[in-house]
């Protein structure tokens, strides 16, 4: 059986009294693009820095490719590529110098592949990193993560500063990595990006994992926006009584609501009282799911 590419068990990190990460359990199989979602300060970067052995867990453990991230950190790093969040590099080196430096520390890379990556991302490697715009600097960071064809690519907000075309190319690169049986751990708050490439999504908030689902399951659970046009002015209270309906607004013959229940039941109620002229539904994207999750959390908090 195949080993998990990334596994965390009860991973916890405290900074003094601040609980940055609490009891995180994850298991990510090889060949998966895993999306790690959360708002700023949720604990995404803390998780990644713990996996990279930059910081040490207060409790619990993490392993990559079956090796403990602390005990075997050097061995692990032979097999991973990493794009830190808020990427900083050496401003006085050119992109190529930077890549050469890391390549030397890795014991060499395939330079033809580096050139391919540079071409795909439209990166400028002969300029000093300090003279590049943040997006172009990010490209250099991406190349260094992908250039050694690592088993696991760990990326913290990798598309920051990239234009939409390059973002799309990056998504393509991630899918290719997964298709080759390699693994991508993608931390992001750009939900549309995660939605396009990830197989599963973990949502983290205040250092706690609050959801772990496939993208499909999340979406099917989702609230939908339902808009019904009736043959006469609508009474909101009629719709408010239906299970799963929230946030009803009515304007003349139109009624708009957020709905997360049985569509048949809703239609039955509508048909019982009015004639239906038109109906449209919009399936929510992750953005809305995301907000829904957080609103729920906030309400229960």
């Amino acid at each position, binding site marked *: 059986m195949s080993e998990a590419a990334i596994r965390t068990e009860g991973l916890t990190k405290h900074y003094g009294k601040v609980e940055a990460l609490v009891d995180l359990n994850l298991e990510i199989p090889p060949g998966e693009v895993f999306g790690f979602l959360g708002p700023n300060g949720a604990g995404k970067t803390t998780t990644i820095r713990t996996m*990279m052995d*930059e910081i040490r867990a207060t409790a619990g453990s993490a392993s990559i490719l079956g090796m403990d991230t602390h005990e075997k950190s050097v061995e692990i790093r032979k097999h*991973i590529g*990493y794009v830190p969040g808020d990427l900083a*590099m050496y401003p006085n080196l050119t992109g190529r110098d930077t890549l*050469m*430096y890391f390549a030397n520390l*890795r014991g060499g890379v395939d330079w033809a592949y580096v050139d391919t990556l540079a071409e795909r991302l439209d990166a400028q490697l002969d300029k000093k990193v*300090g*003279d590049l715009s943040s997006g172009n600097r990010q490209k250099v960071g991406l190349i260094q993560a992908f250039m050694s064809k690592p088993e696991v690519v760990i990326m913290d907000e990798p598309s920051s500063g990239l234009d939409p075309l390059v973002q799309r190319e990056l998504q393509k690169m991630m899918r290719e990595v997964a298709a080759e049986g390699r693994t991508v751990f993608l931390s992001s708050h750009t939900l549309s990006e995660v939605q396009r490439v990830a197989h599963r999504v973990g949502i983290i908030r205040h250092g706690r994992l609050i959801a772990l689902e496939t993208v499909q399951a999340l979406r099917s659970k989702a609230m939908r926006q339902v808009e019904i046009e009736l043959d006469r002015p609508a009474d909101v209270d009629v719709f408010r009584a239906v299970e799963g309906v929230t946030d009803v607004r009515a304007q003349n013959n139109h009624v708009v609501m957020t709905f997360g229940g049985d569509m048949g039941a809703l239609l039955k109620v509508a048909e019982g009282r009015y004639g239906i002229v038109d109906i449209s539904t919009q399936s929510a994207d992750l953005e809305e799911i995301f907000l829904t999750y957080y609103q729920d959390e906030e309400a229960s908090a």
Partner: protein
Amino acid sequence: MLANVFLKTVRDRWLGWMIALGVVWSFVLLGFAAYSDLDLSILATFPEAYRTMIGLRPGMDAGALSIAAIYGTYGSLTFAAMALAMGAASIAGEERKGTLGLLLANPRSRTHVYVSKVAALVVLTIFATAVMWAISIGTASMMDIALGDLDVMALNVHMLASTLFYGLLAVAIGAATGKRGAASGISTGVLAVGFLGAGLLPLIEGGEKWAKLFPWYYFNGSEPLYNGIEWGHIALLVGAAAVFAVVGLIGLLRRDLKGQSVGVTIIDRLRENPMTKKIADRLAGSARVSSIWLKSASEHQIALVSACSYVFFIQLMLGPFYNALPKEAFEMLAQLPEGLEVLFAFFGGGDMSTPAGFFQIETFGMMAPIMVMLVTIAISSAAVAGEESKRTMGLLLANPITRSRVIAENTWAMVFYASIVGFATFAGTALGALIAGLDMSMWNIAATCVLLTLVGIVGGALALAIGAGTGRKGAAVWGATGVMVALHVLNSIGSVTDGLSFLQRLSPFYYYLGNDPLNKGMDWGHPVVLTVIAAVLIGISFPLFQRRDIRQRD
């Protein structure tokens, strides 16, 4: 005026000034304590040339001696260095950090921002000088040290004018070019060359008029401590500072602001030229990134070259210079009673009547160790703490390398560079002595330079250990500098105060010059002690770095 830019600049900088003040004040205090029980009537017998060099006067007492020696060297140099650092950071520094654009996005003109920054520099300098004056006078009266006719106020006014000169020189270069490195580098050069030029040239027959070429002359050349304020000199310094301020403003108003972009170096131009591309690429590109230590080394080339050329040329010139000194001075010095070496303790001690003693006081005592440590502390503080402050450590350690390797390779770079500075010092001294036909043992020069290298490595190792333990570059640079300065003072105090001579042995500087290696050669125990200190500091750096979290923010 833009009150908030002014206030923010003051707030960012006042702590540094307070620390500088504390350091200078503690020197004054130590000076009072160390010199207070000496019988100084012998000073009257000193030859004129000799007295002027370290600001001595017949009838001088402990207070005068401390204030002259400390204001004349440590104090005024520290203040000039503070102003210079602040000046270089004010416009060019913000530009380099990329915050100047943000600042100017507010509805404020460049002139407003510039004037606020300059005002902050001037106000802080005036404030620090005033406090310095007050605490010197206060401490002297508390310790019952009579300052008599000494015009401490005049000395402070001169120090203020001189400090403003260097501060505004740095502001102007930074504002006109946007290059922080140029601002601090050029003004430091002017300061260092002036300090030596104005100090040494008056010793030669007819050299006084040449000394006037150096700005430092206008700080102490008129001996304001005894003669009161020399308004002509003050006017020159302040006038020059005002001209700098205006030139800086004009430059700033006329040019494009730089982004966070890095400067174009000579090697960059060579890399762009097809004729030289290949060789320049090899020099700058593939070679410097082939390993961690080579990259660290290449990033400190400028520091290395500056330090080496400085020590080499100074040492080279000191030989012939020694011959130019009036000979009767040496004859008289040879007859001086025992115990007077205390006067030179702060400069590293040494017997001025021999070439070896002269070299020791002029450079080996202070300048040479400063130059080596400039390089070793820079490279060691950049090694761990610098990478963390710049947030590149995470990326570096994403490669399959251990944290220990980062420490080990940087240690090697530091040791290698210290050795080069040591060798440059040796080459300059030996050549200078040969040219001048001085009676100096090459072996002893070599031994002294080995010890110099080792004491520099100790300073670097301390910066490495602090950086490895804290991840803070400021702590590494200033912690190591502060501790080494304190240890230098400890050694000086220990050497002049009988009851405190045990203190000397706690200072690495004792194992550097304590046995008078230029005259007596190597005491083999001393390099061993220095090596052990360095090894322990480097040794603890490994576990210190290994155990902690990498810092992500500054």
